[in-house]
């Protein structure tokens, strides 16, 4: 098979996997919602609605049809780009997601930046000073921080850094009157688009603490994975050869060992991005931020079927996309994987 065809086949397989994963996810969530007790029509009609009113709403929402019919209707609409209408907000779910998702993505991206910018240097330092005091300190810190419940940590940091010492804002996304005109729904980007430096600085102060809280748990995982991977690579024969050539320890570590240790970090970071979107709900609740986590939590609590399905599929699609990007990055970064996938060039 030619190299071009190999690449095409690789992407076709990956795309097929994504479609299958999303279909499975959607079907599973649909069935789970139907199995969970609770009547969507009753919720939409209100707690004091009479049986006649509930019946009217059930008919209007198409809930009087069999589950199979509802299932195919859902996928039929989805193929036309319609995720349905929320029974609680009365908005197209796509519009609800457009309002809530950007804020969560901003939180997750900033958290990931903090995560990587802390865990990678820490992993490098710990591996370089294996068995030393710094390594020991970092490992103990990783155990302590990794074991902390995110909710508790969020409340503690919020109390200490924001409420007590007033170093950062306590909750929200902007100060009163500092919200930039909405363009993307991401306060920092919107502030940049509006050319409003004050608004940008304001939005950044609001995101630092929630993003740091979200990053903490995940950075300990990346730290451990990188340290372990680096220690393995540093013991390998080619590193001995590099040292024999007279390379400095700094060059050995950053120039040779690190690129060869990055694969587990890439895989883990990819997985973490998806997990962070799910975990964002806790941080969003404590810091009173809008986001898809809070939206989905409400949707589940109120059995808002299309809102739940839409959120899950959207997050699923993002996770699939991230996995695809990670796969491609691994192929680009690691010649061993490239050779295994497409043969030697």
């Amino acid at each position, binding site marked *: 098979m030619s190299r071009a065809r190999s690449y095409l086949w690789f992407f076709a397989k990956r795309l097929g996997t994504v479609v299958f994963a999303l279909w499975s996810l959607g079907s599973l969530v649909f069935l789970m919602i139907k199995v969970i*007790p*609770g*009547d969507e029509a*009753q*919720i*939409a*009609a*209100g*707690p*004091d*609605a*009479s*049986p*006649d*009113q*509930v019946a*009217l*709403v059930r008919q209007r929402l198409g809930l009087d049809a069999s589950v199979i019919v509802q299932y195919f209707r859902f996928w039929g609409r989805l193929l036309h780009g319609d995720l349905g*209408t*929320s029974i*609680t*907000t*009365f*908005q*197209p779910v796509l519009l*609800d997601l457009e*309002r*809530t998702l950007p804020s969560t993505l901003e939180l997750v991206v900033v958290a990931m930046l903090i995560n990587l910018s802390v865990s990678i240097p820490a992993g490098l330092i710990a591996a370089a000073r294996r068995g030393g005091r710094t390594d020991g300190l970092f490992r103990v810190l990783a155990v302590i921080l990794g074991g902390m419940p995110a909710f508790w940590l969020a*409340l503690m940091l*919020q*109390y200490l850094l*924001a*409420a007590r010492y*007033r170093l950062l*804002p*306590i*909750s*929200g996304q902007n*100060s*009163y*009157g*500092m919200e930039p005109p909405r363009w993307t729904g991401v306060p920092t980007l919107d502030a940049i688009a509006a050319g*409003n*430096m*004050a*608004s940008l*600085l*304001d939005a950044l102060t609001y995101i630092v603490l929630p993003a740091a809280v979200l990053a903490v748990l995940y950075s300990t995982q990346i730290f451990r994975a990188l340290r372990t991977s680096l220690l393995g690579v540093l013991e390998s024969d080619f590193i001995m050869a590099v040292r024999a050539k007279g390379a400095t320890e700094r060059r050995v570590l950053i120039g040779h060992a690190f690129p060869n240790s990055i694969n587990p970090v890439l895989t883990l970071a990819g997985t973490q991005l998806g997990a962070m979107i799910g975990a964002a709900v806790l941080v969003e*609740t*404590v*810091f*009173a*931020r*809008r986001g898809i986590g*809070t*939206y989905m939590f*409400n949707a589940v*609590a*109120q*059995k808002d079927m299309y809102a739940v399905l839409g959120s899950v599929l959207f997050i699923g699609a993002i996770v699939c996309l991230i996995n695809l990007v990670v796969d491609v990055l691994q192929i680009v970064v690691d010649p061993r994987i490239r050779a295994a996938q497409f043969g030697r060039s």
Partner: protein
Amino acid sequence: MRNMLKSNPVSFRAMGTALCLLGAVAVTHQDAAAQVARDKAILVASSGQINTLDPLRSDYNQTNVPANALYDTLVVFGKDNNLVGRLAESFKVADDGKSIAMKLRAGVKFHDDTTLTAKDVAFTLDRLKKLGVGAASLIEGYESTTVNGDLDLTINLSAPSALFLPALCKIYIVNSALVTANAGDNDGQTWLQSHDAGSGPYTVKSFEGQAVEMVRFDDYWDADPARPEGLVLKRVDESATKRDELSAGNLDVGLFLTNRDVVALENDPNLTASWFNSTLQAEIIFNTRVGPTADPRVRKALRLAYDYDGGLAAIRLGKGTLANGALPHGIACRPDLPPARRNVEEAKKLLAEAGQTNLKLQLSFQPVWEQQKQEATLFQANLRDIGVEVELVPIAFPTYLASLSDPKTIPQMMLLEDFAQYPDAGIMLMKGYKSDAIGSNRSGYSNPEVDKLLDQARVTVDDAARCDLYKKVQEIIDNDSVMLDMYTLQRSAVYRKAHVDGVGPTPQVTPIALSGLRLLAK
């Protein structure tokens, strides 16, 4: 560029300094601008998702609170729980109870400057009837509206109903032309989710689900310059977050804080922590149709087992009043019943009479509410004292609602906090205890005598006579031990004492009415 910066560190520093200064100037400028507006605004933090601003869902508290600032109703309950006109200048129920004649206040403007007419009232009620959701459940029996003139109308009912007129205090009148223009395919529900079509003291500036920002409507018919120019209602679920924001001065009013946080803030010199009587009542509802709790003697025994005083003092920090009947304190037409008391010996005797030994029961509760979780545990411990084992069953509210459609699926016992949509005994009794009120009769209670009295009350136009009927019903319900009525709870609000005034509930809006908020004169 890189080379330039390397070769000329002075330029780099100068540029950095300039950027910082620019940023600082911008920050200072923005802060100053925001500060001025901030002084004229009131920021309120509440809990729970504001799903929609459509007043159709005024039965949902998170919608009712902002709707009360954006819209007006035809009537409201006054201080003594008597109905007074708001948009309605006068109203009269026909002798046969089948229609209500109304004259509207002249010169009321909607936010787009159109004038309120009888057509808007007809449109609002017809829309509710057609959609049949939310507040529509409050106006069952609505038939049509006859528009007699720009300001004159007659509301026609399918059958006489004493419940209809009070329910109008929760029906917010919408601008018919504006809603029609934005009707879409769902009678304006999508558009009204984030816009308003009201005539209230505020109009929507922006709505993001987590926060609704409103600005004062200066052409309001009942305008008051002391009202803040801006009003923000934002969602902050965590009580600790609200507590810290209030202490820091970032919030002006905090609602739905835990009792513990409110008590903690009572010592803050910049804040006032107020407690208000409410119609919120904590109760345990028995399934009166199926299982051991179908026996009134068992229900009576269970009522005698609970430690009311201990629960109120320890769990609710004393912020409430022991219940004395099915309806909360603060509602008119309540009989003077003695509050429930714990009496273990009497409870054991009743259980023995009922032939119930080694009784095992299930108590459902919503674990998301911390205080209810504690009350469930206390009840479990109390029942052990009379030889009854209780299994605690967590339940989500939607699941509970679905269970009410059939007495066989109603939980054996359900711990709940319930409040009156508005202070009318009739609506609470009809919805809660009439045998045909499936879905809202949460105990499955069925008593022909009660049904008969309630049917009679529905068609009784004379207020005093109707009141007597309601009292009789409550006496029967209490004697039947349909529920374990724990206590009527107080609600709280914490606010900045140097900035805010007018914090308090109205009979139809709890915990506070946003339209009542005022800025303190500096």
